[in-house]
């Protein structure tokens, strides 16, 4: 009988191979872009960057087109939860940002009808749901965890977000920022989470809230969210602006 670790490794391997296939496809497209560069001066960084950025945006569009908003990510039993769940950020665990829960208010901007800010008691009083799903990191590891919170589509409906807009951007207390497409934001498994393993999110997992998107890679799951905005202007993200694929989902 396979051990849990072997089983996880095999499953994780399949997922990573699936991502790799997409990367291969993307790199194939990038090779196409490289072929187009033959007429360019390779020392002209701006033109190269513009072309590669254009290709990457094209890839985002193709991935968004392929995304099935009704397809659910696998869910797991409590026994499959990875313990301890790994900490991962651009800083060490002893430098985690502390947010004061008593003063906290979630700020809303952009194409939202009711931009009133939300305190934690108000957010905690919304109907909550839980999920046990796999977090997949672009670094090549994955882990299963249990998150609880409000279905993000319900929250967006409650605040009167313009769900015909293209993007939702997030600003975080640790200065990290990212954005997601509206179709993924409305996916039934996308949760605005306040708890991990049935406990209030500890700082290392993103107190006071983390957007949990099991259909996207980990860096598209912002922690310590302080504000969010709805827009049709492409917002990018920290890692996305460094060249990582913006859509990064299945």
């Amino acid at each position, binding site marked *: 009988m396979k051990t849990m670790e072997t089983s996880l490794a095999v499953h994780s391997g399949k997922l990573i191979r699936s991502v790799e296939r997409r990367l291969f496809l993307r790199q194939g497209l990038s090779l196409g872009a490289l072929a187009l560069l033959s007429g360019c001066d390779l020392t002209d960084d701006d033109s190269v960057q513009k072309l590669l950025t254009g290709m990457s945006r094209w890839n985002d569009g193709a991935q968004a087109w392929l995304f099935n908003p009704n397809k659910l990510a696998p869910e797991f039993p409590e026994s499959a939860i990875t313990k301890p769940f790994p900490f991962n950020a651009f800083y060490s665990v002893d430098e985690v940002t502390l947010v004061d829960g008593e003063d906290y208010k979630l700020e809303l901007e*952009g194409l939202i009808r009711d931009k009133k800010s939300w305190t934690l008691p108000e957010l905690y009083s919304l109907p909550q749901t839980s999920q046990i799903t796999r977090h997949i990191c672009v670094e090549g590891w994955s882990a299963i965890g249990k998150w609880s919170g409000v279905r993000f589509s319900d929250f967006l409906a409650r605040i009167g977000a313009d769900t015909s807009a293209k993007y939702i951007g997030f600003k975080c207390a640790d200065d990290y920022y990212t954005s997601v497409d509206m179709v993924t934001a409305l996916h039934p498994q996308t949760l605005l989470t306040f708890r991990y393993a049935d406990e209030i999110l500890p700082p290392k997992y993103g107190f006071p809230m983390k957007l949990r998107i099991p259909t996207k890679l980990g860096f598209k799951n912002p922690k310590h969210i302080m504000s969010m905005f709805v*827009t049709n202007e492409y917002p990018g993200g920290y890692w996305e602006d460094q060249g990582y694929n913006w859509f990064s989902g299945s």
Partner: protein
Amino acid sequence: MKPLEAIALAAILAAGTGAWAADAPDKPMKMDEPMHGEMKKKSMKKGDVKKAAEKKDREMKPMIEKEAAGSAKK
């Protein structure tokens, strides 16, 4: 809000406060140190994220405000 709901919310908040107090970091982020993790390029520093966030905010804020103002007029 009903008294029972208020008590429940207070308990949840208190539990949250306890959770982060127990898990408090011992040092502030050192912005001039290299980044952690495997996503970075070698030259990246932790403070680069803050600088990039401020630049992004300067770029996006006027566009978002203009967009929202235009939408409110409709």
